[in-house]
């Protein structure tokens, strides 16, 4: 009986992930902003929208803004609590990455970042002098022993019950200790007024997407916690054209590929492909697993790495 329930819930979870993968291309919550941006050159362009009482109205595309209905308190509370029963993990298959960088741009779009600001960064790696170079997407590792949250003086960055490490830019004092503490260089700082600050200034702050970004505070990868709440895969995972990313729940032992929608057993995937975590000797216990870049699906087409890049 108990087993059946857990099977059911897993099926439901996988189903919803499958649906969201299929739907992601069609109704991304931020596609409206994209449309609004594309329309800036043609100010007169109007779109038809259905109001709540059933009337069809026309609105200038430039006027479209994303909405968040929940008040700040509610968003902050549920954002700090996390999603009960979940334990999110990501698997990155390095043999499939060809540096398409769709993950990076999808992430920057979602989190209102500039082109030089990376929550996820595709790095050209070469482990030793005579080893093969490869591309390595590097999001926040969402460590289970996070060096960053330990040092935060105000509990602005914290780890929630579902394993995600978030940053609260309503509380962050901008001391940047967490940036210094992170061995994966996963965190960024808003040194100046964030991108489109004026446009988003009236938006209610959503801690699970860390938008709108704020000047003088730290920002980081959040596994798209806002999308997870809607049973969608993270932006980077959905955006990948090459099947690099798997994302899912360690409690369910299931991860879904963001490109193919295929769901596999997490433990089997790791075991059969010699999965590993980055710099495990540091004891940070990352939640992002890597599959080694063997039998690459794409040739390495990066600049040949010079030593200077390999700090």
């Amino acid at each position, binding site marked *: 009986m108990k087993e059946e329930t857990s099977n059911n819930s897993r099926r439901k979870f996988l189903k919803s992930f499958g649906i969201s993968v299929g739907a992601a291309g069609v109704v991304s919550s931020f596609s409206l902003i994209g449309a609004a941006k594309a329309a800036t050159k043609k100010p007169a362009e109007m779109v038809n929208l259905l109001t709540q009482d059933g009337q069809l109205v026309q609105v200038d595309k430039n006027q479209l803004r994303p909405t968040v209905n929940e008040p700040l308190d509610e968003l902050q509370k549920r954002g700090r609590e996390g999603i009960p029963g979940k334990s999110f993990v990501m698997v990155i298959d390095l043999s499939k990455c060809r540096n398409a960088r769709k993950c990076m741009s999808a992430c920057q779009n979602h989190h209102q970042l500039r082109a030089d600001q990376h929550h996820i960064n595709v790095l050209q790696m070469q482990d030793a002098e005579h080893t093969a170079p490869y591309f390595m997407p590097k999001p926040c590792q969402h460590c289970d022993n996070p060096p960053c949250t*330990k040092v935060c003086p105000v509990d602005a960055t914290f780890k929630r019950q579902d394993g995600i490490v978030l940053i609260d830019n309503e509380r*962050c004092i901008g001391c940047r200790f967490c940036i*210094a503490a992170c061995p994966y260089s996963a965190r960024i700082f808003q*040194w100046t007024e964030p991108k489109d600050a004026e446009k988003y200034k009236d938006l209610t702050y959503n801690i699970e997407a860390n938008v709108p970004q704020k000047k003088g505070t730290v920002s980081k990868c959040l596994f798209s916690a806002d999308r997870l709440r809607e049973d969608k895969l993270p932006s980077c995972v959905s955006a990948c054209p090459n099947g690099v990313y798997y994302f899912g729940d360690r409690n369910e032992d299931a991860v879904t590929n963001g490109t193919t929608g295929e769901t596999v057993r997490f433990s089997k995937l790791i075991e059969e492909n010699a999965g590993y975590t980055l710099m495990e000797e540091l004891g940070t216990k990352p939640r992002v697993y890597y599959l080694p870049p063997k039998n690459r699906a794409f040739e390495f087409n990066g600049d040949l790495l010079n030593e200077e890049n390999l*700090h």
Partner: protein
Amino acid sequence: MNDLPKQKETNLSFEKIKKDILHPMQNHKGLELWIVFLITVISVCGWAYYIQLKDGLGVTGMRDYVSWGLYIANFVFFVAVSLVGMLISSILGLLRIDWITPISRIAEIIAVAFVAVAGLVIVLDMGRPDRVLNVMIHGRFQSPILWDVTVITTYLTVSALLLILPMIPDLAICKKELTKASPIMKKLYNILSLGYINTPEQHKHLHKMIRTLMVLIVPIGLAIHTVTSWLFAATLRNGWDTTIFGPYFVAGAFVAGSAALIIAMYFFRVNYKLQDYITDLQFDKMGKLLVAVCLVYLYFNLNEFLVPGYKMKTGDDIHLKELFYGNWAIMFWASQLLGNIIPIILLVNKKFRKPLPIMIISLFVLAGAWFKRYVIVIPTMLHPHLPIQNVPENFVHYYPSAIEISVTVLSFALVLLIITVLSKIFPVVPIVETAESKGIEVKIDA
């Protein structure tokens, strides 16, 4: 001790001591000009901070990789220098070493000024200084920053007490003697002197309190610099991830603090004409002390660089090569040689421990100590575990911006202003203690 230059025995009476020490406080024209100059510098550089406040930390040279820069280096330097208060007036004081009597107050003034500004420098470095109270409201005691806030405020408080309490008898004299002082100052002397008239009972109580504080400040002083080192050592970065950072920083702090004290001693001696009080003996002894602390620091440097340099572990290797013969070599070797090794060699010679030569050597030591902090903070941030890629060119290097340099000048000017003001309103050499140490009878009228 016997080989020391015999100081000229001038016939000092209590009246003469009072006059010599109190006179320059009120009759020094240059001092007021100097204060005006410092205030001007602070105002101009305050404008730079205003721009930083308005436009964000983007006006600095810091970016995502080098996210701690000049300000943090300054912070470590200021905390380091402030440790001289604990070294001189507490450790040496508790050991009842008598030659420190005329310079202990200068040491305390330096300690108070530097630690107060160190606390401010951290706020100058914050991305959201408007949220500084979050540290109280949402403070997490697991964070080393909370430990730093705690020990710095404690050290500032105890240092200020160690400045004021031993000064109470002197303040009672100021109240009487400084007839030209403004009414506000007279009131201040009146309040701070607490009605002290040097009765045996008052004397006993006062010295009991001072000794308690002198003991208390030893662990606090050790704590401020140890905790400051932990801001770095608590991370997993190459160059910071080391276990000796606590004592290494404390040893370095004694070097920086002693050098700063020697420089201050020289300027007070010359400007306040205190040659009879801050004598060649004090410079000679301070020179020996500086050699001792430099040798300890050298020993720590040997451990800190030779051992990982021998192993050349992955990660450490790039960092160390950059320091030893890469982009940071000039700064690294200059701070080691000019700031430590050469001063040791020179100062073992008696003739270099004369006031002027030792002051010049101390300038090098102090500058070296500052560059040493810079070399501790910035190169490590440039050498993270993973490669720096897909970011603009200015993320890969770090050069402090004009704004950052201006704000740095502001903090240094503020330190000098605090020292100057304190030395203008308070006697820089203890009057009563000096008289007592020379066996001259002290009389304080009610």
